[in-house]
Structures are given as structure tokens and as C-alpha cells.
């Protein structure tokens, strides 16, 4: 028997075209994860808009959610296109994929300003520390001391996109690893249930250019240096008990916008995801230790979204009829008259 989700759709309704990435690329795992999360969450595929920039990562929207419209834009400028689309259709669920080159270099400005506006979207960076599609140059997120397959050790300090997002007050900030299926699915589902900017920085090894052990973003390195903040369970609003056991140890619960819950089971020391400074501290510490801290780093459900502050019509603007978009003839007469007096 085929499994169906809450909308009674098969998972195949959420898949996409055949991937043309290198076999084993972390990005393909993430695509699978997106398919899984969207299906499990029971999102209507036609209400999703897939957005991306340029890069191996940014190609992936062709490989998932074939029933959704999407836009593979230009390098680093996906956020602005998403902003425009969000303005005229705030009911779309924006699911965006970018790369570390796409976001941390050419696109860092748009990334920052999308966060500042708290654009209502899921923003995924498939972060491999290199420019995959242009053949493996270091990106700005690669750690000092990391070394890719060919070339010398990277000497420059990294830009930590999570730290940047937290510092800017991003409402949902998480880090995960393409190889951590369970953690990633929970975070992905939670991100999809969030309203506002949900940023997930996903370490995603580039098997062709940087999967050697001296690369801090290789499978082996990440597996050995993954500093997990908590064990995560996602409890959907439509089925609160779905397969989730109450943990034995301590736990906290994040109530998400759509009524779903993300349950965080304390691992070692408790992490306070509501406190920006403590989240930043965790990141700075792990950077020094050469490890990758993963989990829900920061969460704030009290930030208005980009469209909230604008006082727009309840109806998405794209659905307004002509009489609401074009003021009446009378009104123009009034305008003219006002100038005449």
C-alpha cells in the first residue's frame, strides 16, 4: 500500500526531475529531505514557490517538488526576487535554496536585508565551503585551516551565516548536516511551519572538490565533529501524537506558527535558543574548537514579517480585481480638482 499524507497525496507528488549533480553530492540528500518534509507536513505543492540563485545547489529546485512553480534566478539575487513575489502573493510558501557562494559572497547583501525584513520564507543554504559549479574555488564560509582536495589550505576567516542571521534578529536560525537525516527533517519541517524567515544552514559535502578528510566540510570530518545541541522531534498540528515518544530526559517545546511543535530534548548542556547572545556564544565556541554546532540555534516568534508592517490588503494583491487596483474615474476627477484649487 502506498503511504499518503494528510492531503492524501503520495510522496511522488512531491518529487522532481532527475538530478544532474555528482553522485553522492550532499545537495541531493537535502533535496530528498525537502521532498520528505513537504510531504510529511502535507503542504499543497501548488502553494509552494521554489526559489534559487545560481550554483549546483541552486539547480536543485529542478529535482524536487515538480508540481510547484519556481524561479532559478541569477547569482546571489534570489532574495530580492522572492521579496517581490512575496509582496504580491503573501499566501505562497516560499522555499528557497542557495549556496554558500551564492549567499555569502555575491548575495550577502540581499541575504541580510531579507532577514532584516523578516521575509516569510524558508531559506536554505547548502553549504559546502566551495563554489561547486565553477569547479571548486573556496567560498567565504570555509573555515580557516580547512583544505579542499586540490589547492592550499584556506587562510581566511569564515563568514558564519548562522551567526550573521542571529545577530540580525532572524526569527528562526538552525544548522544541520545533509547526512543527519532525522535532525534535518525535523528542522526542515519546523522551518516550513514557521512564519517569517526560517534560515537553515546545511553543511553539504561537495564530493567532487572537497570531500577529503582535511576539509572541514567532508562527510568524515562533519560526522566526527558534529556538536549536536539537542535531539529534535517535530509534532505536526494535524496529528499531535504522530510517532513521537515523550522523551525521558529534559525537554523544551517550540510552538510553531501553524500549530505544530518542535520538541527539543536536552543533550548535554541546555542551549537557550531564545537568547541571541548565548546562541552567538555557542557558535563562536564551536568555531574555535573546529566543530560544527547543529540544531535550532535561535528562535523568536515575535518578529513582524515583511508584509505585516506594510498594512496590505488581506487578499493577496495578485488576487485583487481591477476595480481595487485601478481607482475610480471619480477619484481622478478629485485628484485633478485638488490640483486646480
Amino acid at each position, binding site marked *: 500500500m502506498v503511504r499518503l499524507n494528510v492531503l492524501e497525496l503520495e510522496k511522488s507528488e512531491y518529487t522532481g526531475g532527475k538530478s544532474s549533480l555528482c553522485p553522492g553530492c550532499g545537495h541531493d540528500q537535502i533535496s530528498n529531505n525537502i521532498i520528505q518534509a513537504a510531504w510529511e507536513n502535507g503542504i*499543497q*505543492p*501548488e*502553494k509552494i*514557490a*521554489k526559489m534559487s540563485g545560481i550554483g549546483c545547489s541552486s539547480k536543485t*529546485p*529542478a529535482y524536487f517538488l*515538480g*508540481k*510547484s*512553480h*519556481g*524561479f*532559478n*534566478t*541569477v547569482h546571489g*539575487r534570489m*532574495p*530580492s*526576487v*522572492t*521579496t*517581490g*513575489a*512575496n*509582496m*504580491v*502573493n503573501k*499566501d*505562497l510558501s516560499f522555499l528557497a535554496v542557495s549556496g554558500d557562494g551564492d549567499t555569502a559572497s555575491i548575495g550577502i*547583501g*540581499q541575504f*541580510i*536585508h531579507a532577514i532584516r*525584513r523578516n521575509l516569510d520564507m524558508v531559506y536554505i543554504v547548502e553549504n559546502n565551503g566551495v563554489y561547486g559549479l565553477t569547479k571548486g574555488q573556496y567560498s567565504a564560509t570555509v573555515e580557516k585551516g580547512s583544505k579542499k582536495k586540490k589547492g592550499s589550505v584556506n587562510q581566511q576567516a569564515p563568514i558564519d551565516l548562522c551567526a550573521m542571521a542571529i545577530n540580525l534578529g532572524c526569527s528562526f536560525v538552525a544548522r544541520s548536516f545533509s547526512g543527519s537525516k532525522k535532525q534535518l527533517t525535523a528542522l526542515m519541517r519546523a522551518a516550513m511551519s514557521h512564519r517569517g524567515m526560517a534560515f537553515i544552514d546545511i553543511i553539504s559535502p561537495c564530493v567532487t572538490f572537497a570531500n577529503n578528510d582535511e576539509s572541514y566540510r567532508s562527510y568524515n570530518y562533519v560526522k566526527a565533529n558534529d556538536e549536536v545541541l539537542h535531539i529534535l522531534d517535530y509534532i505536526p498540528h494535524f496529528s499531535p501524537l504522530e510517532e513521537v515518544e515523550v522523551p525521558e530526559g529534559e525537554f523544551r517545546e517550540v510552538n510553531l506558527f501553524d500549530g505544530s511543535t518542535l520538541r527539543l530534548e536536552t543533550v548535554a548542556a541546555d542551549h537557550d535558543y531564545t537568547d541571541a547572545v548565548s546562541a552567538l556564544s555557542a557558535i563562536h565556541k564551536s568555531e574555535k574548537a573546529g566543530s560544527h554546532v547543529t540544531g535550532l540555534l535561535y528562535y523568536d516568534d515575535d518578529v513582524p514579517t*515583511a*508584509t505585516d508592517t*506594510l*498594512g*496590505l*490588503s*488581506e*487578499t*493577496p*494583491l*495578485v488576487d*485583487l480585481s*481591477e476595480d*481595487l*487596483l*485601478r*481607482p475610480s*474615474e471619480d*477619484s*481622478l476627477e478629485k*485628484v*485633478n480638482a485638488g*490640483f*486646480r484649487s
Partner: protein
Amino acid sequence: MGKIVNDFVINVATANGTGSQSSNLIILHSMFEMGIPVSGKNLFPSNISGLPTWFIIRVSDEGYQAPGDYTNIQVLMNKDTWMKDLEGLEPGTIVVYNEDVKLPVDRDDCVLLGMPMTKMARKINPKLGRLIANMYYVGAVAHLLGIDEDAIGKAVKAQFKGKEKAVELNMQAISEGRSFAEENWEFECQFCVESREKNPDSFLIEGNEAIALGSIYGGVSMLSWYPITPSSSLAESIIGWLPELRSDGDGGSTCAVIQAEDELAAAGMVLGAGWAGGRGMTCTSGPGISLMSEFIGLFYFSEVPGVIWDVNRVGPSTGLPTRTQQGDLSMLYEASHGDTQHIVIIPGTVDECFEFGWRAFDYAERFQTMVFGFNDLDLGMNRWVTSGFNYPDKPMDRGKVIRSQEELDSIANYGRYRDVDGDGIAYRTLPGSGLDPILYRGTGHDEDGVYSEDPQVYHEAMARLKRKIDGAREHLPEPVIREEENKELGVIFYGSMENTIVEIDDMLEESGLSVSTCRVRALPLHSEVENFVRRHERTIVLEINRDGQLFGIIRKEFPVDLIPKIHSVAHSDGMPPRARVYSDMILEVLKEVS
């Protein structure tokens, strides 16, 4: 001596940030109130306060709006330019000056009329003395020219709408100025104004505000913008009008406004809005267009509607940010790398600013491409007459958008980029609709929107794009042609040059030429432009730039046999065009080629 009625030029030299703009507009509006054809050009500097500013008022029963050849009345207020302003005057000029500046006025060949404006102003209000001093020259000018007190009163009220205190204070200053002049100046001015019958419907408005209103009536649903002179007032005017004109019943706005982080983002937002089915626009000036170039290619190739207004200032680079030019035209036409071509619409009057404001969206959605509106600082930021804007004469054209499964099913062999109608324009579906989703992209794609590097697919797609934009020619605003029987000389021009063309025309006719004119209002060029050239013995392409940009386009595109008849006259120095400069250049060229 007979008086010279309604035919003179006033030049007011002040520093910006001193409130002089109010004084100048009061002079302008008071004469306008009297029904006198008048125009004003503000030459302001690129800073906020303290630098030289000139305001040129042209009064002309002939309807000439360009700055004239000479200044007849010079108002001197600014010490920084005092000496240079004085030096440049023709003998006989009437000089009204602020005595308190305490600089020499060594022009015995001029009429020198001093007034202690600052002192008098300080007496009324010590704190606001500097601002109010400027009202004294309003009084002085009113006296010299005989401007109606009533008209002045109306203009002051309009200027300080609702601020009674300010109205009173400024009126007092103007009256005192007038009285002082009456009492102390024995000079009888040879220039005067005379009321004309005023079209009660007419008013003055800046081109940018007209475009703003046009856009609002065009159903703009997303405005993204990044401040830049001289386009900021366009965006700010939209923002100003939205609450009144574009609220839904429940107080929600039907247009989103985003101050973008830069021009690249502003363009991206327009793209996103257009893709999602909205009517997105932005406005900027040359530097912004340069920054948007990459996105403009994406509009073209992925076929997304959007509107970008370029309010041209003087380039290259940062250039003269507060001066006017038509220097971006050729860039707009072919912006971005690779083979591209864009629609450009070019209003020449404030009425057209309004009209093209709304039509821009119809064109963009009809042709599924980025439409440039081309305006310049002169038309955009100075005030021009209209007798009121006309309501759009047809419903919005939303172009080929499929909104239901039935519609989709009725198209045999549908594909996002398949030319089923033979006009080069394919049908599109919108995100959220669930209808035939594709992943839009800036990379090569086949007729179904699927990624493709196939040579034939690419070649055909590019040929269709060419056909599509080419097909727009006859649908875009046709040229405005004023044609003489005798087809001796045709002058092709565009945009704000409309305000100078009548005077140029008259100057040329004075020298015995018979001149037809053809105002181009869109690129790609309408076939009537070519016909116009064909009908005339010689044609001049007249423009406000260095390189003759429209001329270049015409040379590239027009049939070979027409080329020898077409000549370029291009000049730009940042100033609003002076008729004499261009008519002299035209005569020069005609001499050379004949």
C-alpha cells in the same frame, strides 16, 4: 515707450536650503493664476544646503518654455555667485539685489535696484529672517511686472497649504517688498504681465508626480525603489498618494512599497512581483540602470513583465546628479549582455507622463518583458501645465495569462514558451495557480520551459524574442507629427525637448525654412517615423546628449536609402535646452550638408 507684455525671462540666483524654492514657485504660480503662459526651471546643486541655485522663469505668450536667450530680470541673492552672475548679464538687464549682501554691484550699464531684504525680514521675524528675506524679491518682482495681489495671495496660500502663520508672515514680507519698491525705485519697468484668459482646468505639475499618478491608475501593486535624484520624487509621490487612492475597503493597501537595499534588489523585486502576477515597478536614474543590467537580461530572457522608469540625469558615472540629459537612451534600448532589446516609452508632456504611467504595465504584461519608461530631470522635476489627467480609456490589459484549467486545456500544445498565436508571445501561468508549473530560469530553455542547451532550440527561442519585441512597434505610442506642406526639413526629437521644440521651430522658420516635427514616443521605432523621414527632404535628429543616441539607433535600423537624408544634432551641458543653441546647430549642419 511701449511695454513688453508677457515676454521676458527672470533669473533668480540664491543658495539652496534658504527657502528660495518657495519664493520662486510663488512667482511662477501667481503668474500662472493670471492665465499667463509661464514655465520655471530649477537649477539646483547636488547638496542639501548652501550651494548656488538658479531658478529661471520664462514668460511667453508664444508658449515658449525653454530658458530664453537672455535674462531680462536678474534677482541677486547669493554672495557666492554674485560677481559671476553680474558679469554674465547683457547691458540693460534689470538687477534686483539684496543690499544686505554687501557686495559691489558694478554694472552701470544695467538697471540696479537694491533692497535691504535681510534687514527688513529680520524686523518681521528675527529667527526666520534668512528664509523670509527671499519673499522680498517676490514683492519686488510683483511690483516691477505688475503681478496681481490676488494672484500672489492665491499662490502663497497654495504654497503654504494649511499653515496660516506662514501664509501671513510671507504675505507681509511680499507686501513690504512691493511697497519698498514702489516707494524707493523710480524706475519704470519695460516688462509687464497682462492677464490672459485662464483655462480653469489647467494646473502645474511635475512630470514625476504625473507618472506616479499614472502608475497608481495603472494598478501598480508593488513599488520597490532606492533613492536617487531625480527619480526619488516619483517614488515618494506614489507613496504619498497611495493612502488616498489605493486603499481597499478595509484600510489595507493594494500596493506594497519596499525601500530596497540597492538598485539590484529593486530590480529583482520587480521581477519577482511580475513573475508572481503582480504589476511591479521601480524608478531610478542612470547609475541605477547600470546596476540593474544583469536583471534586465533575466527579464528579457525569462519573459517576465515589469516596469522601470529611468529619470535621466547627467552622466557618465555620478555625473551631474541634479542636471538634465537624455544620455541613457541607447543603453536602455539594449541593456544587458548578449543580444537583447527592450521596449522604451518616452513621454514628452505631463499628460503623457500620466498616460504612459498606466500604459507601461499594459505593455509589460502584453509583451511579457521589461518596459522602460524614459523621463528626464527637466520634465520630471520641473512644473508643467496640464488641463487635468484623462482616465484610462480601456481596461487593464493583463496579457496572455492563463487563469484556469479550462483555459489551459483550450490551448493545443501549450508550453510556457511556445508561440501558439504566431505573434511571438506565449502564454503564462502563475505561481500558486497549480497550473502547468515550470521552473523559470535565465538559462537556455525549450518551448516547455525545460532546461536546454540544444542549438536549434536556442536559436529559435532567440528568433522568437526578436519577433516579439519587433511586433511591439506598432502597438506602442506612435510618434506625434506636426507636418508642413512643404516637406523641406523634418526634425525628429523626443521627451522633454517637447518644451523647447516650438521655439526652435519658430527660429528655424524665421530663417526661411519650413519645418515639420516628429516626436518619437517609443522604441522600437514605429513605422511612421520611417515614413516621416521618407517624406522629407532632410531630417535632423535632435537630442540632449553628446553622442546622438537616437540618431545612432536610426542609422542602425532604417533602410539604407534613407540614411543620407538623416543628420544628427546633439548637445548636452546639463542645462535645460536653450532653443537658440539647437537652432544654430541645426542651421550649421544644414549648411554643411547642402
